[in-house]
């Protein structure tokens, strides 16, 4: 298991453009050691590009990404500091899974015995001598994960590691990542599987259109909404949206308000002369939150506890 370390991943004003199109726009956030951070966003929101810039696979047009205070390319032993899985099919189909890992072990100075250890860890021992081109999607994911874990790195950066995994594989992945974080490691995982992130992540970073739309503790974000019941729902919704809140209608007389502390919701209702029949904290599912964050105009949201 990875020894405890202190390798925060810090993203500062990261920007990437392809022609006139800005795919990552002044993005800043921190991934803390000892926690699992989920990286969420719709397709094309810039998640993979951000991860590639973290790992110096893509050049940033502005800003920087550091891991333990250094850029990836400046790390003394990058592949043994950061385990990354960026392309799930980054292997030659005519090469065995074991040889794929032996090549990486040789390049990074990892002892050869570690190849067999990590194959066992991801449950690929029996298929190790088969050509990777014959692997199922789940087995390919396991091979990618094995490559990331090969150097026993304190930092893991994984792009959609759960894709194609069966329930047992997902559970193994979750346990492995939780153990990594519990040992002081830094774990940054992008995923479309919101249920999985809900079970796995301590923190989330959410981007949309290349911009940060939410970040913070998942538990606090899930609590950071207020349920309002009033006969003047439309009027109050307009008032609150004008003040920067994210407002969702829940029936003719109910609103769910996010990005605004519950006290401020009450104060603004009072100022607007709107009578409230109910004002209470409301927990939301990650899916509900995700849709709220990614279907409304992007406004940076830190956790605003109710």
């Amino acid at each position: 298991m990875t020894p405890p370390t202190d390798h925060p991943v810090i993203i500062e004003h990261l920007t990437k453009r392809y022609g006139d199109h800005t795919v990552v726009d002044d993005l800043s956030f921190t991934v803390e050691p000892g926690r699992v951070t989920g990286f969420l966003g719709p397709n094309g929101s810039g998640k993979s590009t951000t991860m590639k810039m973290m790992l110096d696979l893509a050049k940033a047009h502005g800003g920087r990404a550091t891991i333990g205070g250094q850029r990836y390319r400046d790390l003394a032993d990058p592949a043994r500091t950061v385990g990354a899985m960026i392309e799930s099919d980054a292997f030659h189909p005519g090469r065995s899974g074991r040889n794929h890992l032996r090549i990486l072990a040789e390049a990074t100075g990892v002892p050869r015995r570690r190849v067999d250890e990590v194959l066992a860890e991801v449950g690929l021992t029996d298929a190790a001598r088969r050509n990777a081109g014959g692997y199922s999607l789940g087995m390919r994911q396991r091979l990618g994960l094995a490559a990331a874990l090969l150097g026993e790195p304190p930092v893991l950066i994984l792009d959609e590691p759960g894709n194609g995994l069966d329930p047992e594989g997902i559970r193994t992945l979750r346990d492995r990542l939780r153990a990594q974080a519990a040992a002081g490691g830094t774990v940054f995982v992008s995923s479309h599987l919101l249920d999985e992130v809900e079970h796995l992540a301590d923190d989330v970073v959410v981007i949309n259109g290349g911009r940060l739309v939410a970040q913070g503790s998942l538990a606090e974000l899930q609590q950071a909404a207020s349920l309002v019941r009033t006969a003047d729902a439309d009027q109050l919704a307009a008032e609150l949206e004008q003040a920067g809140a994210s407002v969702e209608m829940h029936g003719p007389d109910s609103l769910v308000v996010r990005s605004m502390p519950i006290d401020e919701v009450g104060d603004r209702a009072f100022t607007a002369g709107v009578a409230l029949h109910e004002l209470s904290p409301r927990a939301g599912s990650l899916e509900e939150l995700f849709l709220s964050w990614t279907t409304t105009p992007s406004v940076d949201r830190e956790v605003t506890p109710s």
Partner: protein
Amino acid sequence: MNIIRLVRSELRKLTSTKMPLAFLAVLAVMAGINAFAVIAGTDFDGSKAFIATEADQQSLMAFAANALAIAGLFGAIATAREYGHHTVVPTFLAEPRRHRAVLAQFGAIGVGGGVLGLVGAGLTAVAVAVALPATDFGFLVSTGNLTRVLAASMLAGAAGAILGAGIGMLVRNVGGAVTGVVLALLIAPPLVVQLASGTASWMPSVLANVVSGVGNDIDPTAAVAAIAVWAIVPAAAGLIAVQRRDVD
């Protein structure tokens, strides 16, 4: 990061798929064709004059021009498939200072090309030697000249592989890279010579023959240097492109 480790890793890449076997099979077929030519071939007058002297036999065995082209394809496929299969991603994660990773690739692919060139020339020499007893002529090539043929083919193989690797890095697509090598080594040179006849001595196949000792268009040392330039120019272009581009 130890560059020797990177080269070893790249060598394992080359030897852990069936691609080298395919190239060795091509070399064996070419050697077989040579043996058949020795046994069954004749000159226009029906004689076997094309194997009558040491110079004739050395010319038949001179494999360097073939080595240049075959190893060029080997190098192009070896690097272009890295992009097609995305294996360049773990390569640059293991060594984010890309120039080092690329130099290691050139080193390993150059070794691979050199081995292909040596094996190709060796198989051809063996095939000719085995076929000659079926004719009225013996094996006439001296050890020194045979050594030169083998060394020239190894050198041409290494240079061709590096040339191909550079083109593969530029094009990043196996089909395109193979086309690029064919254009650079086989199609463009005769066209260039037609436009500028003074350049004929500096074309790859002519240089390969000079190094093999079966041509005397220019000084052999200059020919070795010119072959190196043919390899270095696309390799440098590939290196610059890799440094500048994002990894897709």
